[in-house]
């Protein structure tokens, strides 16, 4: 368990489901609030950037609320930040899901669609898959994590520690750089495995 009342701020990227993230953090004893202001993004001790829905729509919401610069500064500065699912893809430059829409561009990379012509591969990837961290990872352990995605990053950006997974080829299940973590899977829906990740991240 983490310190009681530890404060976590969750970015409202859209009308997407935040309830799982919010209740998951509250179960760990956190005081959780949501925000759509740049100031709270800058000041938060711990910030979660969730994401469900399309890349372009989420970028659009961040831009309309003027949150892009605050997120860039915060993440570049290494403040504790957890970007989940689409949130992780938003850190990259682009996505094939929404051609021509720039992401945060904090890391090089383009999110690509899972090839669905592979036998036995369903798209969306919906379910539990085994993730394997490299030795330098400090937050994500090996184990089964819950995924619900059609797009993913396949190349680990420079300076980040990769957590790999396989589904119609190798892809980036997560990436860590100090207290900044991107997770393609949903730690808040990954039972005890996910709680372990959230707990370690909250301790950063």
């Amino acid at each position: 368990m983490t310190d009681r009342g530890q404060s976590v701020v969750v970015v409202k990227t859209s009308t997407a489901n935040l309830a799982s993230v919010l209740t998951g953090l509250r179960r760990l004893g956190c005081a959780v609030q949501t925000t759509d202001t740049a100031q709270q993004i800058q000041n938060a001790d711990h910030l979660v950037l969730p994401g469900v829905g399309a890349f372009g729509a989420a970028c659009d919401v961040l831009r309309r609320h003027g949150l892009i610069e605050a997120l860039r500064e915060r993440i570049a500065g290494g403040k504790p930040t957890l970007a989940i699912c689409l949130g992780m893809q938003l850190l990259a430059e682009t996505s094939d899901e929404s051609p021509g829409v720039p992401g945060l561009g904090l890391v090089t990379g383009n999110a690509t669609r899972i090839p669905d012509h592979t036998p036995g591969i369903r798209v969306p990837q919906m379910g539990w898959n085994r993730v394997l961290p490299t030795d330098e990872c400090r937050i994500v352990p090996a184990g089964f994590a819950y995924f619900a995605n059609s797009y993913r990053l396949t190349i680990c950006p420079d300076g980040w520690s990769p957590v790999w997974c396989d589904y119609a080829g190798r892809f980036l299940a997560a990436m860590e750089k100090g207290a900044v973590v991107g997770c393609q899977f949903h730690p808040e829906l990954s039972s005890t495995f996910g709680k372990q990740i959230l707990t370690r991240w909250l301790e950063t």
Partner: protein
Amino acid sequence: MLPIRIIPCLDVRDGRVVKGIRFKGLADQGDPAERASAYERQGADEVVLLDVSATPERRGTRLDTVASVRDQLSVPLTVGGGIGGMEDAAALLGTGADKVAINTAALDNPDVLTRLADRFGAQCIVISIDALAVAKGTHDYEVVVRSGTHHIARNAIAWAQEAVDRGAGEILLTSIDRDGTRSGYELALLHAVRAVVSVPIVASGGADSPDHMAAAVANGADAVLAASIFHQGNHTVADVKQALADRHIFVRRDNRSNSEDSVR
């Protein structure tokens, strides 16, 4: 390949878990949040909550039940039953559902699937299909709506294909012939739908044993849903996973001991 998901289903009416045979004769089976939490501890990969009374009695799906289950549950939660359209779906996703299972509303207005997928992403949108064999023993299936009380002349396989084309990211495929009968899943139905879609399929209706689940997997199911066998304590989710692993089916097991979490 991902591990086959084992999904306990909570049929809920008036805030209580119930289970009947062919959607009738419902008996009390406990508190939804307690049940869901117990199933997660047993190793459930996901939980489905269906409000079985919502459509016939024109009630909205009960948001308070969803919220109380969400509080307890840290695996994915799919909610279905009487979802009328965008607003209902948005309310459920906002309250704690990770996916919504749309049935009647999609048949009435198939465009709702596209609009939901555009707004929330295909991975949130499940098309729930209740299928009934046109005649006993035939492999011709029609779609049934209003919780099994009202027939509609629509081919179930063609509807599955259309629903996916319109944006559904998963199919919850229930055989009404088999529901609650403990006679096994309707394998020919699964096989036929598998042949026309590439999204995940959740087999539902009739499970009574790991053998039934293994047969569903062999016929294209990516996940198997069951209610009675778990509620009545004949099998825990962990028992079922062990039995499936013994049959060389890939399942997710205890995450904390990574060395023994799978076969193959």
